[in-house]
């Protein structure tokens, strides 16, 4: 009787321990970088994205994203790193080393051009991955078809230079480690509706695509 009781208690404890409510939520980090660019742009975007993921998938994401300094240990505490801005990006040599380590050891970076980031981002990412190029992902790539389907690729949120939106990736040992969205402006689409006054379907499409990107990285089918 005692043995049965102990066993039962242990089972309850284990069950509670592994209950999803107790497991640590996934964390999104906002990359703080040097160079003078506004790394802090779209301040409300990541909270909205996290909330959308929580409501539309079975994932649990912390709805208070962390601001991550590259030199801080917090870099290795986030599951998904996001960067955006309009201006200059600059990584020191040490930051290049740390970012490369993070990305080649399971990390993921989503860079979203808020209009003006392109030149400096391409220059700086080349420092992190000098031997790998940004390649444009075809519309059939799984990242466009995770939770929501985008048969025509990225949604065009804001006009920028009027070019079609493009999604570029850097693959390291077959794994997508960097996803760069250009001429798209997903981050603006994740902001509150009253910030830019975009149509609801555009915002929804942006949030859905953001969910896809997050889910793609988390999805164990794509190690």
């Amino acid at each position, binding site marked *: 009787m005692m043995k049965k009781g102990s066993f039962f208690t242990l089972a309850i404890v284990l069950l509670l321990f592994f209950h999803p409510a107790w497991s640590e939520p996934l964390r999104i980090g906002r990359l703080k970088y040097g160079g003078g660019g506004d790394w802090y742009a779209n*301040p409300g975007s990541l909270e909205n994205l996290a909330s959308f993921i929580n409501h539309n998938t079975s994932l649990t994401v912390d709805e208070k994203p962390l*601001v991550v300094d590259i030199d801080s240990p917090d870099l290795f505490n986030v599951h998904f790193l996001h960067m955006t801005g309009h201006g200059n990006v600059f990584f020191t040599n040490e930051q290049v080393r740390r970012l490369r380590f993070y990305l080649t050891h399971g990390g993921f970076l989503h860079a979203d051009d808020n209009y003006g980031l392109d030149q400096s981002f391409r220059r700086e990412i080349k420092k992190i991955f000098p*031997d790998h190029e940004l390649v444009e992902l075809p519309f059939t790539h799984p990242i466009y078809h995770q939770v929501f389907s985008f048969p025509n690729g990225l949604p065009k949120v804001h006009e920028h230079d009027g070019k079609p939106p493009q999604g570029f990736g850097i*693959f390291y040992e077959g794994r997508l480690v960097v996803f760069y969205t250009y001429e798209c402006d997903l981050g603006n689409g994740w902001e509150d509706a009253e910030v830019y006054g975009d149509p609801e379907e555009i915002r929804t499409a942006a949030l859905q695509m953001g969910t896809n990107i997050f889910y793609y990285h988390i999805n164990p089918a794509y190690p």
Partner: protein
Amino acid sequence: MHYPFEQILTILRKKEAKKRFKTRFFRLLHINCIYLVIITIIESIWYMPSAVRWILLIPLTGNVLLLFWLKDYFHEKNIRKNPLENIRLMEALGNRFPEVKDRFINAWQLSKNSDPLSRLAVQRLAELLPPHYLFKELEKKESPTLHRSLMIKTALCVGIFILTSLFLWDGFVRLLTPSHEYPIPFPWTWEVHPGNVTQQENDSLEIQIIHSLPPHFPKRVTIKESHKTKIYVPETINDTTLRVFLPDLQTSFTYFFSVHRPHIFMPWKEKSSPVYEVQILKRPILEFLEFYVIPPAYTRLEEEIYTGGTDKLLILEGSQVNIKGELSVPVGSGKVQFNDQQIYLKTNDRRFEVSLTPMRSGTLILTATDTLGMSLENEMHYKISLYPDKKPILAVLEPETDLLLNETMTIPWQVFISDDFGIVSFALETQPIRTFQQHPDTTWKENPLPFHPEEYTQTLTGVWTVKERLSPGDVLNFRFKVVDNNTYTGPGISYSQVFKARFPSLTELFARSEQQHFETQDNLQALQRFSEDLEKRAEALKKDILKKGETDWLQQEAIKNLVEQQDTIKETIKSLQESIQKQLEELEEQNLFSEEVLDNMSYLQDLIRELENSELFIQLQKMQEKLQQEMDPNSLLAMSEELQKEAKKFSESLERTIRLLEELRDLERLEEGERLLTEALQKQKTLLKEESERTSYELANTEKEVSQILKDLQKKLNELPEGMNERLSQKFEKFSDILDAAKLQEMLQSAASAFSENERTEGLQHAEQAGKILEEMVSQYQEMMASIQQGRKEEILQDFQRMLHRALVISEKQEKILPGTQKVTKDSQALQERLSEQNFIQESLKQLTIELEAISRKTFFMGPRPFQEVEKAQVLSQEILDHFQEGRFYQAEQAMTQNLSQINQLTGTLLALMGQAQSSESGTGMEQLMDQLQALAEMQGALNRDSQGMPMPLPGPGNETMMLMSELAARQQALRRELEKIQQVMEQMGDGTSQHLENISSDMEEVIRDLRQKRYTRRTIQRQQGIEQRLLDASRSIHTRELSRERESQTGKQSVRSSPEQLPHNLGSKESLIQSIREKLNNTSLSPEERTEMERYLENLRDMVE
């Protein structure tokens, strides 16, 4: 005598009748046999029908004659019947006996008579032919010949009959059973395919007959149409198969297969199959067909219509083809097959239509059927050929060749562009190639250029200002790019050849910058000369008026001329501003100088802007207006004085600006030296690092470049400009000597010579030595710079201290003489003391002004505020003196009180400025503000995060929440106070960013109000986030002067484009593949020349793969 004529006759008659009967019988038998044989043969061959057999047997009924013959026998046997016969017989008998002949018959005839003659005759006969003889003769059998032959014949016939009937027993039996129908045997079979069938018009039909007929049997296939009948001889495929092929069926028909007997000796003449029906259904006819070709929207072409008579369509890629047609009957279904695409037709009664957008050339096959399933006679084939949208045409008319960038950093260009359907973008792409980059960035940056979107062909001209941050020696590759508006397959892009714009070397840049400074200085000096001239003229005019009470006409004209030059002067000032602005932008891009230099230049610009707003121009304007009218001497005098005063102020401002410019120039010269040394060191280090990868020739060249840089530096150190700070000049000279003593040039030249002679080891030794010395030189130079800057800073601080001391003394003195002033009396000692002190104060204030001016030429810390304050103090001091003179002691005391306050304020200002100078690196102050704003932004960020830790929506009033909000409000208030302090400092320095900070401050106020009212909404959060953002922006705007783009937040237009190509197999890691090849090469023993070749090959490989 009795002759037995009757007996004889009886015998004869009997014999005759017997004979006749016998003959008849045999003949009948004969005939019967023959007939039977014949009909048996016929029957056995021909299998007669029952009726025919009956008919054939009918003649056998003729055998009934036998009965008649039998009757005749008895009749003929009776001598009483047919007397003629008796006569004949008797006559015949008589003739048998030649001896009697006629006598016999005569005798017989006479025997009937009883007359003696008759009897005699009889007797005679009896004598001649005795009756017994006759009877003997009569008993003799006749010659068997006749009977024999008949009997033989008959026997033969019977025999034949028997044989035939035995042999053809079946036939004989059939004859004997005429009522029975016997089927005509036909042991062969056949099958006709397809039998009854329905075909479509113009179809063909193959009739196949599978049979077992002998080959020699004639076979036929008879086709019967409504009006005609055709007979075909089927083609023999093999022993058992026949075939008739009927192409192009038009009308319905029936057909059957028949086989005919090869000869008449077959019981059957013809055998036929059943009649089969072939029904031909009429096909629908295509009444009309049209192709509507709709070109892609971006071409703005109109749709084209092609009729069905066209069998080829040549269309632009991306065009939509709408096919519309009509059949003669209602359409059942149909489809269009194009390559591997299959699209079903939309039908509406007889009409049909379909749309498709061909992705590549191919053949379109249209098929349609009516409601009965009848298809068109033929599939409609149409060849659709796609032609691609041509790429746009681009021809560069200018520049024609590579070029060298000048100080304007501009590239004039002229380009011809053309496209068949429209151009969507035209840009200039740049690719900087920097000298120290081992792996240059090969990314092309796009810079849009203006063009006319509505025109398809245009020649465009413009001037491109290089925005790249280039360093000396860098090369800017640029090319033009034009993109057409093809939204279907993707824009067609044409590139021009790649041009190179070389950025001048460091030395050239510095020289250019210095030249610009000289020009600015010249302009400022010209302005100064104008101002001095104006001052002199105003002084002369004043003297004239005072002396003569009127003005000289010449003087007036001179003043007029000067006044009229004010517009030119203003233009000069404006162009000075613009040139400094341009210079500033260039220097920012070139990164030639430090932030301090750039900040100082910016202040210089502000100073020049102040010149533009000088009171002098207002006075000049007034003077101009007045000179056009008649003016009384007094007004003219007053105006001249004012003009003189303003001209003097203007002069002083110019002087200050010129001095500051010289300071700036000195600072730049100092930094230039550091920069040149650093570049030389960098080149040397790179040489040592990459020695193994470079050829001897390259190494020798690099050493020569380094040597040249040092020569340029030496030249700079020796050829100092006029007016340079003496201490700086001494430092430069000293450093120049050190540089000479280090014998760096000799070492570099030795290294270069060694490398040129391919003595790499020796060359490397020299290079290493030179590198070490260079490093030492750089370190020494930097120390020298630091000491100069420190010296400057100390000098500035000493000046501040001096001014502060003076201000404190003035304040002390003013405070000392203030009490009891209103009670002094005229000519009293107290009054005299006060006058003396006040005069001292006035003099001290003048001295302070001079000192302020002096320090303002050394540092950019000094805004207008201290000058304004000291001027106010001077004015008040003068008022005090005037009041003392006039005996207004009460007013004097009031003025003293004001002055004291003013002087204290001035002291505070000086103290604050001194404090800033002390804490800044070089004494200029802007970095400090930047750091403060950045720190403030971080504190705001922390506050935001803590605020968002509160639950949303707030759970209601509760102690904990209220306490938290109060704390947050207090923190926000503290941040706001800090911000206001920064704002004040910036205002003192005349920085425009302070306006910006005011907006941030008001937002902070809103947040504080929300928190105090325990109200924390989404709007509050947004305000907080905005505050943090703008603080960062403000600090960034001081820190960097990047050109910011406007945030384009216009909602994007969704467009559909084709997906990019599949991912490359190497997933973008071709660079790593090339790198791995490079690494392998490094481990081989290739010579540097070979390595260079391989490197070039790898570069081409990279470009090719791209």
